[in-house]
């Protein structure tokens, strides 16, 4: 589904974020990216999301090279992906309902579909009663749950989660990981970047370890190894 072919990413000041990365992520896989800060995890996710362009090499999504996607078509491509960030990034001027419905609005979903799906997904993450609340009125865990609901509302084929539990307590972190596993069980491909050793070891999923922009380890049902 996602394929990196000899991908290198060098930032303008000469910082090498990724070097000669070859990687294949199959449809429906749950992939965990681990590595120290600056190892290239976020860069890899941003490359998949087409927020960055590779300096060298090619990235394929469903056999289409991302380099062939014109800038105006990028939005359509991104609608196939759900993003979850460590810093949540909810829209502060919109309430919980509107934050989630926004993901459907960009796909031109009808008002009736939005009215039907948003409360359902809020039920799923247990936040229906907070539908009218604004992000400032939510706890960190609740915000992240809204972000997950927002990422999955339009049923994307791929979920990119960049340190989604980084700012959460163990209980909320567990909920977030459980949600990602559920999404994966429902057929979504999940790419999770994390520092959380316990999470990695508990999940027993494919683990890719990055170091200085290189993939140094790729294990099926792997463990967190330094």
């Amino acid at each position: 589904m996602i394929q990196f072919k000899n991908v290198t990413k060098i930032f303008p000041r000469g910082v090498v974020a990724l070097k000669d990365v070859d990687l294949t992520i199959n449809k429906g896989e749950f992939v965990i990216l681990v590595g120290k800060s600056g190892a290239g995890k976020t860069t890899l996710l941003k490359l998949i999301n087409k927020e960055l362009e590779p300096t060298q090499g090619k990235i394929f999504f469903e056999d289409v090279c991302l380099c062939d996607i014109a800038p105006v078509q990028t939005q359509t491509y991104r609608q196939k992906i759900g993003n979850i960030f460590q810093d949540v990034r909810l829209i502060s001027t919109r309430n919980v309902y509107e934050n989630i419905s926004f993901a459907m609005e960009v796909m031109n979903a009808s008002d009736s579909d939005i009215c039907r799906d948003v409360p359902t997904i809020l039920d799923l993450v247990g936040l229906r009663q907070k539908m009218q609340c604004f992000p400032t009125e939510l706890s960190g865990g609740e915000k992240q749950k809204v972000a997950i609901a927002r990422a999955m509302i339009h049923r994307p084929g791929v979920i990119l989660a960049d340190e989604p539990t980084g700012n959460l307590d163990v209980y909320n972190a567990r909920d977030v990981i459980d949600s990602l596993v559920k999404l994966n069980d429902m057929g979504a491909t999940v790419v999770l970047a994390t520092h959380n050793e316990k999470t990695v070891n508990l999940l027993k999923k494919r683990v890719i370890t990055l170091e200085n922009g290189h993939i140094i380890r790729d294990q099926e049902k792997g463990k967190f190894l330094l």
Partner: protein
Amino acid sequence: MLLTFKRIFSAGLKNFKRQFNLNIATAFILSITIIVLTFIFFVDGLNKYLFSVLQQKIGITVYYNLETPTEQILAMKDELSKLKGIEGVDYTSKEEAYRKFSEKYANDPTVSKSVELVGENILPASLHIKAKTVGDYEAVMSFLVENESYQEIVNDVSYPRTEEVMKRIFNLADSIKKIGYSLSALLIFIVMLITFTAVRLAIHASREELSVMRIMGASKIFASGPYIVQGMIGGFLAAIFAFVLSLAFAFFSAASISSITGGFDLFAFFLSDIFGIVVLQLLGGMALGAAANALATKRYLEV
């Protein structure tokens, strides 16, 4: 497409309400720009008024020999009226000149006594010629000089004596006009710079949200649209505020401005051009608000 616009407009309206204080502050800055634009419009009106007053006060006066028949003078009037660039030619008969002179000096016993001593009307008939521009007076003079038959009946022409003064006055007025426009352009530039910077600072707080919207797959217009709508609403409110303020200014300062400028009625000017002013303020305000927000959001949409 309609659904997209409906959603953009709805989000813009909600954003405006939810960030009311910030939006009102931005609208206030926008209103300063609109007020400056309106004042430039006022100054332009005043300038045109003063220019027209100046133009009305000058002209060429042709004085005829006392024995010149009226028919000949009127024939010349017709000829002059046909010249290009002539705004009007007024005929003053000998009798009318005498009447006006008598009226003017009715309270001056020395002049009245002198007139009595002369015993007859020695004031000549005349034609007062008004041209559209200073340059057009040259053509009138050429017409008078080139026709030898006219030289026999013309006693005096006032233009040669005032030619230099007229040119200087018009050149001065023209320079003032040009300087005024340049200063206005500079002022508009400065005020717009302040407006755009203020809007940019306000949008800066939303930079992450704009990039998230783009990452989520929103088109540029879908992400920035609500901010542009916010700007338009702000511009609309700013225009209303600017309208009320400029109307009040025109009403309360009309008397003093009229006395300073020798008759320019600012309030009458405001009312006579009210449609233009409303259109200028509303369109200017909304366009400025939309443009400022569109420009401010642009840099954060490149994700």
